[in-house]
């Protein structure tokens, strides 16, 4: 709160220009990015109805998502530096009273397109298309009912995600927010005959509700405080009155934050994401790693003008992000299920993004979202390919040396590359994006967050360790594997027996598949082109994600492409003045304010070095140290890892570390005891009250009233028409008498 006046002026100074949106009816075709997935979703529904038993739903979805991607690519060229609002059609537009501000509510189906929107949609639709292609092969054992259900839900997800990102007002964002939640629920619970999947789906949905409540309340308060929920008008309203001290205005960022923490799996609402891995792997890659979980980051970046005026809220975001990153990384170190490790690493990396947001570098956060989307999708998809080939096996203790297994060389190679990217190995894409975040943490004006920079470095080391724990164990070393216990990939089929026959017949790979059914000898089968091609393309994408930074390094001073994207959006409102991020690339129009701060930032020394140099070196060091430890424990001397675990378990003083990390610090149990149990108790008590008192007494009593009333007048009617007539006439007489008595008596 100390720096509030300075920030206030900076917001006012920057408010002109970049955020003045103009209507662009000529860009209505951009609506295709929403319409195409919606159409394919409806068509998938029709396919389900018509009992289509082919890969048609996949083809429809891939085509629609590809179309959406092409639309976004075209939009990338068509949108200039200022945001545009594209009205698709009028939905809600009411005014009352004199129709002034606060006397109207408008929420049309508009698109608000600025650079941030396009940037986000580029990787959402791009990855969506590739992952749908991957899933067309991955899900093929389910061709039929399940296949259409899967692709229908994926289409709906992309439609909702489009609403969320491209919507021109908070109502559309909210509907998209709920829509992706629904799609996520449907897809986590895809194997709905499996109790764990059903429980995981419910957990995800319910935990998200808590966040959604925050978002909904924030939405109401935004309307109450600023009189609009449309971005274009909202920025103007904030510009006019940036930092109201009303508690309602102060509460908005906190409530938005709650929504973001729910969707993006941050403390204290992160618990749903690891369980969400019960869904099919392409879904884990697309929704629970690359796109949907970044919606929280998007929300805060988009609503940044509301955060920048509230330093406490920003500090809270930073702290939650930093602590989540640390907590998830420690849990990730001690898990054995490959997908779960990647899930915890996702939470941890999302923590970095929130840390970035909290220390004011929306650019760093968005950049990390971008790089993370590719390599994490790659890691999940390679894990899925392994799972697909090894009958559902994901235990890293039971898989080894896959690099040497025929058919898995490419997958293993890409997975190892993914490990390097996730570990933020020096000069990979994530290295730069993480660097951006950590430098900002060290140099933030708010001194309360500086220590998070150190935490971030520790997490970097842990990340490198657990990443390569998987990498070295699974893909290097002697060839050794046990197949999982799932006979057909990982699917649960009670009623799909005949589907299999069909699927095998159609793709001619029955030999490979058939192997699963017999426990005698297990032949892992390698993936075919529909899995390989997306993997390679995503790997290329992950590599290219570092391109903006390479260019900046080579041509010193050239602005980072991602930064130019973010800078021309609401996410940069007031950030330039606040920012202390990387100073090699001044992308945003350098203002006087920024110049001053830039000088001030160079004063921030970390270990006697300029923050940028220091973070670069320390980050590299942490990464390489983590990899080396991993190399020793999980490749060179695998026995040492078990010995270490035994040693730690042997002593009471250290035992808790192992047990705690392996049992996820008992957070789920804690929630069970502190939240679920009391709620269950209250529910039971209320249920008892309901049954004993309300149902038996009040509801049935009131419900029985008319009957009792009827019995009272039974002599009069009891279904006899004269009785009704008398009652009706009596009613009229009563009303007339009442009116005459009350009003007309004295009126003469």
């Amino acid at each position, binding site marked *: 709160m100390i720096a509030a006046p300075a920030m206030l002026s900076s917001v006012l100074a920057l408010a002109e220009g970049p955020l003045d949106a103009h209507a662009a009816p000529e860009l209505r075709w951009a609506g295709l990015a929403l319409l195409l997935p919606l159409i394919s979703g409806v068509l998938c529904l029709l396919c389900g109805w018509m009992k289509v038993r082919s890969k048609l739903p996949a083809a429809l979805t891939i085509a629609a998502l590809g179309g959406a991607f092409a639309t976004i690519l075209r939009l990338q060229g068509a949108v200039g530096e200022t945001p545009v609002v594209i009205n698709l059609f009028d939905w809600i537009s009411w005014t009352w009273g004199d129709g002034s501000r606060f006397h109207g509510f408008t929420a049309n189906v508009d698109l608000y397109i600025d650079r941030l929107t396009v940037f986000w949609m580029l990787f959402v639709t791009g990855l969506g298309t590739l992952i749908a292609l991957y899933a067309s092969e991955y899900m093929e054992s389910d061709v039929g009912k399940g296949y259409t259900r899967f692709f229908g839900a994926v289409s709906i997800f992309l439609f909702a995600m489009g609403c969320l990102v491209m919507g021109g007002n908070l109502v559309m964002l909210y509907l998209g927010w709920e829509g992706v939640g629904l799609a996520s629920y449907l897809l986590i619970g895809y194997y709905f005959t499996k109790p764990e999947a059903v429980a995981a789906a419910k957990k995800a949905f319910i935990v998200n509700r808590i966040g959604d409540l925050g978002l909904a309340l924030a939405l109401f308060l935004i309307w109450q405080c600023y009189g609009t929920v449309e971005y274009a008008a909202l920025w103007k309203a904030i510009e006019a009155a940036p930092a109201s001290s009303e508690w309602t205005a102060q509460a908005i960022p906190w409530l938005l934050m709650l929504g973001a923490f729910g969707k993006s799996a941050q403390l204290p609402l992160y618990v749903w994401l690891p369980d969400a891995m019960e869904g099919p792997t392409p879904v884990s890659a697309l929704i629970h790693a690359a796109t949907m979980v970044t919606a929280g980051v998007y929300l805060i970046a988009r609503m940044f003008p509301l955060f920048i005026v509230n330093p406490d809220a920003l500090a809270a975001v930073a702290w939650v992000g930093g602590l989540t990153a640390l907590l998830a990384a420690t849990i990730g170190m001690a898990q054995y299920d490959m997908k779960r490790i990647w899930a915890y690493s996702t939470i941890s990396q999302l923590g970095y993004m929130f840390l970035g947001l909290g220390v004011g570098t929306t650019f760093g956060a968005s950049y990390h979202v971008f790089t993370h989307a590719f390599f994490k999708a790659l890691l999940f998809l390679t894990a899925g390919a392994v799972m697909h080939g090894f009958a559902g096996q994901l235990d890293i203790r039971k898989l080894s040396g896959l690099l040497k297994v025929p058919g898995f060389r490419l997958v293993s190679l890409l997975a190892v590359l993914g490990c390097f990217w996730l570990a933020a190995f020096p000069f990979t894409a994530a290295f730069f994006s993480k660097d951006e975040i950590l430098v900002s943490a060290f140099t933030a004006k708010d001194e309360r967050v500086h220590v998070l920079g150190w935490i971030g470095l520790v997490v970097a080391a842990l990340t490198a360790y657990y990443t390569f724990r998987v990498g070295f164990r699974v893909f290097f070393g002697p060839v050794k594997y046990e197949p999982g216990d799932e006979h057909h990939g990982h699917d649960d089929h009670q009623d799909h027996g005949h589907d299999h026959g069909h699927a095998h017949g159609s793709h001619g790979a029955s030999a490979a598949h058939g192997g699963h059914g017999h426990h005698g000898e297990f032949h892992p089968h390698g993936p075919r082109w529909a899995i390989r091609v997306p993997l390679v393309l995503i790997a290329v994408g992950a590599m290219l994600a570092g391109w903006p930074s390479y260019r900046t390094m080579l041509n010193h001073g050239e602005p980072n492409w991602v930064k130019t994207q973010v800078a021309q959006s609401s996410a940069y409102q007031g950030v330039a003045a606040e920012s202390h991020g990387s100073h090699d690339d001044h992308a945003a129009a350098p203002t006087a304010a920024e110049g001053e701060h830039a000088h001030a930032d160079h004063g921030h020394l970390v270990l006697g070095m300029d923050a940028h140099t220091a973070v670069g070196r320390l980050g590299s060091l942490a990464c390489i140290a983590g990899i080396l430890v991993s190399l020793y424990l999980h490749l060179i001397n695998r026995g040492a890892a078990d010995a270490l675990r035994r040693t730690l378990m042997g002593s009471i003083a250290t035992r808790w570390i192992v047990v705690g990390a392996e049992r996820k610090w008992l957070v789920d149990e804690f929630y069970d005891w502190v939240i679920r149990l009391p709620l269950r108790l209250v529910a039971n008590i209320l249920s008892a009250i309901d049954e004993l008192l309300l149902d038996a007494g009040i509801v049935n009593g009131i*419900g029985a009233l*008319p*009957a009792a009333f009827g019995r009272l007048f039974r002599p009069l009617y009891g279904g006899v028409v004269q009785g*009704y007539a008398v009652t009706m006439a009596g*009613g009229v007489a009563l*009303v007339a008498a009442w009116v005459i008595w009350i*009003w007309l008596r004295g009126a003469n």
Partner: protein
Amino acid sequence: MVDMSQTVALLAPEIVLFVASMLVAVLGLSRSTGIRSLVPWVCVAALVGSILALEAVWTPERIQGARLLFPMLGKYGKALIALIGIGLVAVSAGSIDRRYEEAVARGRASFDALRVVRGEYYAFLLLSLTGAMLVMSAPDLIWLFLGLELVSLPTYIMVAVARTGRRSMEAAMKYFFLGALATAVTLYGFAMLYGATGTMQLIPMRDALAEQAAGAGLSTTALLGTILTVLGLCFKLAAVPMHFYAPDVYEGAPLPVTAFLSFTPKIAGFSALITVLGTVGWSGHAMVDHDGVRIAYEGLPQPITAVLWMVAALTMLLGNIGGILQTSLKRTLAYSSIANSGYMLVGVIVGPKGGIGAMYLFMLGYGVMTVATFGVLAALERKGEEVDSFESLAGLRASHPGLAFLLTLSALSLLGVPPLFGALAKIVLVFVAFEGGQASLAAVLLLNTAIGAVYYLRFVGAAVVNPTNAKSQEVVVVPHWWPKTAAVVAGLGLIVLPAFLSRLVDASATTVDGYVDLGEAVASDEQR
């Protein structure tokens, strides 16, 4: 001088329906099965035709000549009647005469023109819809009265004609007798209004009352006349204190007729209600205190507001409470119909500043939900009988998932679960009630929505949650696509209509376009 041809031209939609009703009365007696099965198609074509005719003839010049109190009411209202009418025809088609037709088709019975009711049934249905349309373009009380009678008289017969059996006969008897009683009350009110103003024409009546209001206030005769008219019309709405018949008659009538009864008399009654209240006006009234000082207030004259407030609140409350313990689906829906009338009365009390528009928006939603709900029920049968208990619906999700989904959808919409259309219409209604200074009534409405959940959720519970039982095992889908189609289209409407909410709000608000309220009538009088 009024150009008669212009006035007649305005009636084109009604004329189309009338001609069609004569046509189907004859076609229904044809010896050819093909021609007989054409009857619902003719009805649908006529209703579509009447919408087209409405679009063609409803021009501003003609309306001016017709001297209507609510000149634009017909434009939206008649289209609404015809639209929902199509759904009601679809709900009926397939169940009227079905068993007899089957017997004829199988050669077990020979065709006997005296034993079929198809022709009469559809003719009456169209005539009743014609009456509802006529109500909306009534320039005077006589026309209004005849229109109302044309709505009701065919329905008395429809209750009896479409099914043989004691219960429907008894229901028809009750309905007819009590309807006559209510009509007498309405007519008495009309007479008093005539006595108070000396005219039957609505616009002169409005002016006369405006004069009274600007002077010493409305005369006792005028007030009592209005109140009696309102109470008489309550029969059409199935509102307190004229609601007693609804459960018995709805239960006794065949299912399609129940659907028809829950919509057509209601929209006609509400249109008549606002027409009569339009002469009294929602503005320009004043209270005279002890010192003889006039204190002007907004809204209907206070006694009328008080009566309507009480009627609305009691209608909502008794409707919803009555629905709780019913076992018959049709009885439950009768109470639901009562409760919904109560909701819509809130809009009437608020008046032309948003209230009436919101009421007609809700009417649209109610009509669509009625078609959806009854469409599903009409698509089911058990041992050749209608399905009329919650027990029979158990396990519907397993046997007919599509129908279970539609029933759930319409029940949730009736209950008011966003984003379904029923919920949004209700929100608009609550909103205008708050804006129109009827916050207490809005609160009653919301409270009643919560009570209504008890029985609306029983539909969902029965169809989706409960396991199949011995009774519901025998439930099968009727071999006709009409009711199913009606349910599917109406169900889709509940999902799709919210996307056009703003437009529908605007469209339903046009019903009061051109209406001159009492306060404005006085003002323009003074200017002259």
